């Protein structure tokens, strides 16, 4: 008995030392400068997009008297052809785009993860139904389907988010499905079954932890893609509808050749913001990938 207690105490020490040595998720993530930069940029964007307009008392819908003014004292980023302040529109639009990207990714994951998991674990009919449905979704050109759906329903931020999110579930489901297929044959799953664990506990304790990590690292990429899809739709005029702003419909202004060549302040900031956002999110994805690969960080005491 005393031995056991002593053993546990020294084991606790060993555990602390090992945790320190191999580091938690965060310290492994922080090893990558690009990943930190990406997280910093996205964090800053979230703060600025939510607090900025309130603190600066900017309104993206107020029509002013000064049209098409270049950046200056009154309007830091100038105004558009209706006299609206472009800084306000950039901050609001960025927020809308970021929201659509994140929410759509979340929807795709929440739908795709359980479906892929069930299809891979139970196989049989579940597998056939889920995976053929995924094939069906993947066989339709995304843009065309979204255009049709947007034409059928009124384009709005919630509708766009839902549509882009739903369209991304097959990617998540396939990833999880493929991993589950390999993991379900592993002997530790058989072992868990001989211990008398229920399917739910096997799935949550043994299957999910061993199949989700690729999902964490693809999530940011999905998010970046969703933002780009939204921008493309808005650029085409079927996404977020004016007067509401998004990064994409700010770029819509560049469709006009005069604006494009002689009024760069109307679209360059939105374009730069879009590029910075997408790159930062991709950096985060790469950082997560490296941090999750525990074998990369193997430390022996």
């Amino acid at each position, binding site marked *: 008995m005393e031995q056991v207690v002593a053993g546990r105490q020294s084991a606790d020490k*060993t555990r602390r030392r090992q945790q320190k040595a191999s580091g938690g998720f965060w310290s492994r993530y922080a090893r990558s400068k690009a990943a930190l930069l990406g997280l910093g940029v996205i964090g800053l964007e979230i703060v600025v997009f939510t607090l900025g307009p309130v603190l600066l008392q900017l309104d993206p819908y107020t029509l002013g008297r000064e049209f098409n003014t270049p950046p200056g004292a009154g309007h830091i980023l100038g105004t558009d052809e209706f006299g609206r302040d472009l800084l306000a529109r950039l901050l609001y639009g960025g927020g809308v785009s970021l929201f659509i990207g994140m929410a759509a990714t979340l929807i795709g994951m929440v739908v795709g993860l359980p479906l892929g998991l069930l299809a891979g674990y139970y196989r049989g009919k579940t597998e056939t139904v889920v995976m053929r449905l995924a094939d069906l979704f993947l066989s339709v050109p995304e843009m065309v389907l979204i255009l049709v759906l947007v034409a059928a329903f009124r384009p709005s931020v919630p509708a766009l988010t839902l549509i882009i999110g739903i369209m991304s579930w097959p990617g998540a489901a396939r990833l999880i499905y493929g991993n589950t297929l390999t993991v379900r044959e592993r002997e530790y799953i058989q072992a868990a079954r*001989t211990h*008398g664990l229920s399917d739910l506990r096997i799935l949550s304790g043994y299957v999910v932890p061993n199949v989700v990590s690729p999902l964490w690292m693809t999530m940011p990429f999905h998010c970046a893609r969703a933002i780009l899809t939204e921008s493309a739709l808005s650029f085409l005029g079927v996404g977020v509808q004016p007067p509401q702003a998004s990064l994409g419909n700010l770029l819509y202004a560049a469709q006009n050749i005069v604006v494009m060549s002689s009024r760069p302040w109307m679209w360059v900031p939105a374009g730069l913001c879009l590029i910075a956002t997408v790159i930062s999110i991709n950096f985060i994805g790469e950082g997560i990938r490296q941090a999750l690969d525990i074998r990369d960080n193997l430390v022996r005491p």
Partner: protein
Amino acid sequence: MKADEPILEVKKLKIYFGRGGFGGRRPALRAVDDVSLRVGHTETVGLVGESGCGKTTLGRGILCLIPPTAGSIIFGGEEISGFSQRRLRSVRPKMQMVFQDPATALNPRMRIIESVRAPLKANGWGRTRAEQAAAEILETVGLGAEHYYRYPHEMSGGQRQRAVVARAVVLNPQLVVCDEPVSALDVSIRAQILNLMKDLQKARGLSYLFISHDLSVVRYMCDRVLVMYLGRIVEAAAAEELFAQPLHPYTRALLAAAPIPDIDLPAPTPPLSGEAPSPIHLPPGCRFAARCPEVRPECRLREPEEKILPKGRMVRCVQADGSICAGPARLGGIK
């Protein structure tokens, strides 16, 4: 339960795969075909045979990890083959498994002590009690406190297999199915694991069903041996007798094929050539006829019956008659 009753009795167990297909016309793969066996209290029963003969499927079938196609599995006097998943959960703690590959037998996301206490927690033990019991059993199998909080990838194969053994016995099971428990390990580690398993058997009164293709390991561990070929048990005997006087030509071939650790001896010509026929399209007659060095015409016509011989032996071959008459074994390097 009476004392002389076996802990496990399997009767005419069949496990077929892939029946159905489109329109149900595809023939089934008969991985396990009409297998009957018994495992007594604190007995070690060996199951030998070449790759693909259905050893692993039989082992998993007995633990109800693969649903049987037909037949019955009686464990501790209870017929469990028809149990629902829910009812099986009450029996499972009494029958555990040691796996072949320690690299995949432990959940890579769990620390060793978490893996070992998982079976206890699954059966309703409190956290502290489970952790203490897990620590004790890890100590018993020779893994000290410094190993408790390691991940499987931070340990050697032998250490991992010790953890797998610890996990299998932590629930105090009556039967442990060992599926090639040492074949993935270095020869230098094998004896340690085998002796550990023997010690645990003595201390805890375990029964083992020991699956292996390594005859020297089987001879060291087992009281009785079953020889399996293409889903069938072709010979059963006490270990000593089987090795001294194998009756089935397949058993003789297996024994002769075991390597002899002596460089002065010429390499033996393998007594068997070719591969076993497909378990999907089985030939009529004896399943071993196509490769049997002593085949007779009648072997290809109908399958030999099980012959029950004295001293609890069984053999499935037309040549072996009631009296044990086969010649002395051509023993390989099994001492």
